[in-house]
């Protein structure tokens, strides 16, 4: 399902500065295995309103742990995580999760529920009336570009990987969150689907004025989608900034990460000359 690429405007970085950042990590630490493994080590990071932040890192870098700290799927050992200025430790975790959208790596759809029931689950947990949920589900199916008549009553196992992730995105947006967390949402998809979904989500992010934090191990994907990129390695935040700012980094790991898309672009330009241009 190819979609027209969205405008690739420069990101309105300073535009949405208000009193409190939607998401802020301050000197956050988290270790597992009785302190043997430091998954997140003294990370400080702010995500501004309307921003699309990608956290990039290899496996074991602590990026997923950092994401989970934000909606209290796990709790930090040290430091503070604040959502809209409120320390998450003071929040009821269940209520907190209901107002933050979360897209899971493998989709995380409930296999025994229809697509419609999956999308409508958080509104249902919030005790919204059934009719309202039904119309919201249809609206969301439209939003993620799935045919409402065709897909609403299907079950997850009847969908393709890309369709499942679209449903996952719709479910995350169902309760009209202002913040969406995404854990390698498109990692397992084929490149075409992945590209289309990324672009579609990027459009939604802008249209719904969301604040998005997305985890990925793919620097190319991060550069193409994000306003800002944070690079993590072995629990530490190595660098953060716009793609342009990152390219100035002197950190060898950051340089290495950026070198891959650069090299690929050059190779691609050589291998795939535009018609007649070469």
């Amino acid at each position, binding site marked *: 399902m190819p979609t027209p690429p969205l405008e690739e405007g420069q990101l309105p970085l300073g535009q949405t500065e208000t009193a409190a950042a939607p998401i802020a990590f301050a000197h956050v630490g988290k270790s597992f295995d009785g302190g043997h493994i430091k998954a997140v080590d003294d990370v400080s990071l702010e995500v501004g309103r309307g921003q699309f932040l990608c956290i990039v890192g290899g496996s074991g870098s602590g990026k997923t742990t950092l994401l989970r700290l934000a909606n209290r*799927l796990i709790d930090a050992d040290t430091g503070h995580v604040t959502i809209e200025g409120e320390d998450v430790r003071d929040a009821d975790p269940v209520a907190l999760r209901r107002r933050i959208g979360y897209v899971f790596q493998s989709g995380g759809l409930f296999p025994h529920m229809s697509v419609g029931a999956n999308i409508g689950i958080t509104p249902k947990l919030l005790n919204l009336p059934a009719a309202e949920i039904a119309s919201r589900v249809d609206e969301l199916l439209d939003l993620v570009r799935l045919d409402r008549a065709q897909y609403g009553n299907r079950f997850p196992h009847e969908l393709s990987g890309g369709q499942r992730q679209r449903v996952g995105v719709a479910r995350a947006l169902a309760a009209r969150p202002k913040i969406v967390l995404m854990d390698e949402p498109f990692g397992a998809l084929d490149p075409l689907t992945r590209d289309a979904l990324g672009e579609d989500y990027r459009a939604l992010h802008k249209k719904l004025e969301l604040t998005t934090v997305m985890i990925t191990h793919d620097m190319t994907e991060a550069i193409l989608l994000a306003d800002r990129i944070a690079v993590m390695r072995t629990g530490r935040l190595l660098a953060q900034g716009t793609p342009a700012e990152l390219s100035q980094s002197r950190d060898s790991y950051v340089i290495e990460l950026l070198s891959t898309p650069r090299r690929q672009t050059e190779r691609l330009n050589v291998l795939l000359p535009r018609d007649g241009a070469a």
Partner: protein
Amino acid sequence: MNLFSDPRWGEALAHLPDYLGSHVRVSVAALALGLAVSLPLAIAARNRPLMRGALLGLASIVQTVPGLALLALFYPLLLALSSVSLQWFGFSFSAFGFLPAVLALALYSMLPVLRNTITGLNGVEPSILEAAQGVGMTELQSLVSVELPLALPVMMAGIRTAAVWVIGTATLSTPIGQTSLGNYIFAGLQTQNWVFVLFGCFAAALLALAVDQLLALIEIGIRARSRVRAGLGGLGIAALVAATLVPSMAGTAAYIVGAKTFAEQYVLSALIAQRLAHAGLSATTREGLGSNVIYQALVNGDIDVYVDYSGTLWVNQFHIGETRPREQLLAELKTMLARQGVTLLGELGFENAYALVMPRKRAEALHIRTIADLASQAPTMSIAADYEFFSRPEWQSLRQAYGLKFRAQRQMQPDFMYAAAASGEVDVIAGYTSDGLIAKYDLVALTDPRQAIPPYDAIVLIAPKRAGDQALRSALQPLLGRIDIADMREANLRAAGGDEASSPATVARWLWDKIAKP
């Protein structure tokens, strides 16, 4: 003769509503109780490895206890509990029949339910659990709307296994006084009524199969998310339960006559029930009761009257090691029984004692007439007896009195002992003096000159609550002292005939005709 023209099929069928109804009631109650206990336990234990291990271990141990033993164990347990509750809270309950059967069967049903529920719940993918948390479910919401529905197919498989086990094992609740399809099997085995045995086995198997299939329908319905199929299965189970709740005719009788698990007891209880009916007292029999259960059942008033044997009570109930001359033992027994409120109405006139029995011809050839004669030859011989004989005091005192020592000893189902002796498969058996098979196989009971075996007079016992019941006493009076050993042997032989004339009721009528003749 055509197998299916046998009138005993009709007789078996007549019992079906009562037996099947009781069987379903006790099975369903046990399964419901088992589920009610197992499900919360499994849910609580699913994330606690220690508790999970302990629970599954315990349930596995319960499973290794043979069903019959488990059921039998619950009887004394409940008796003790009942007397404690009487002492502390001022009320007691019946430890007989339904309650111990339900408890034991519920315990029996727990392993498959526990194991499959835990397996099912632990089998839910961690990513799904995280998603449930992530969309904002509380732990309870996650359990109810995600984990349990996903685990349900595996859980249902466990429930099906439990249902089949419970229905099968419920046939063993007959000896603790719970009417079930086992009544056919126990009665049939004891009176060599293979029609009954077959009928009972088929009925239990069919019931288990039917319930299994209905549960399978529910399971498939859940798997395929088809409400129609799941609903049909549920409806079927509900219909089965409802059908058994239609009150059966049994249990309305005023008097309940108890019988132990062998043919003579079936005949005598039928005879007593017929006499009571003749006197205008409605009576029913409760057959196949375990030897230890039946006396307590009488004391508690669960049954009104039954026939026991003086030596059995002397040894088993009052645990007295040394024996007494016949009259003295009876008199002492009467006093001891009276202390517990039980009336010893009188003797029937015959003894059913243990006796060492061997083929007549062989005994004559070896010049063996008494146990003393046997003692010198015993080391080259083998002996067979029922399951309890070798652990009974009689065996101790026999060995002491005569210095008996056999080459080998075997345990055997009593019905098969006599044939084994006749065929020479064993040399000597510990038989019963009133057994008709002694004459049939041309065996002889060796005499006991040193009186190592206590007397076993058949005696009629009356429950404490019927102690002053003159109508009952006078209805039974004509039986006292009238049944001699020859009549009883012949009655027992008839009862073991294996044809339609050998039903306990028919034999009881024959016996009455015999003894009522002036």
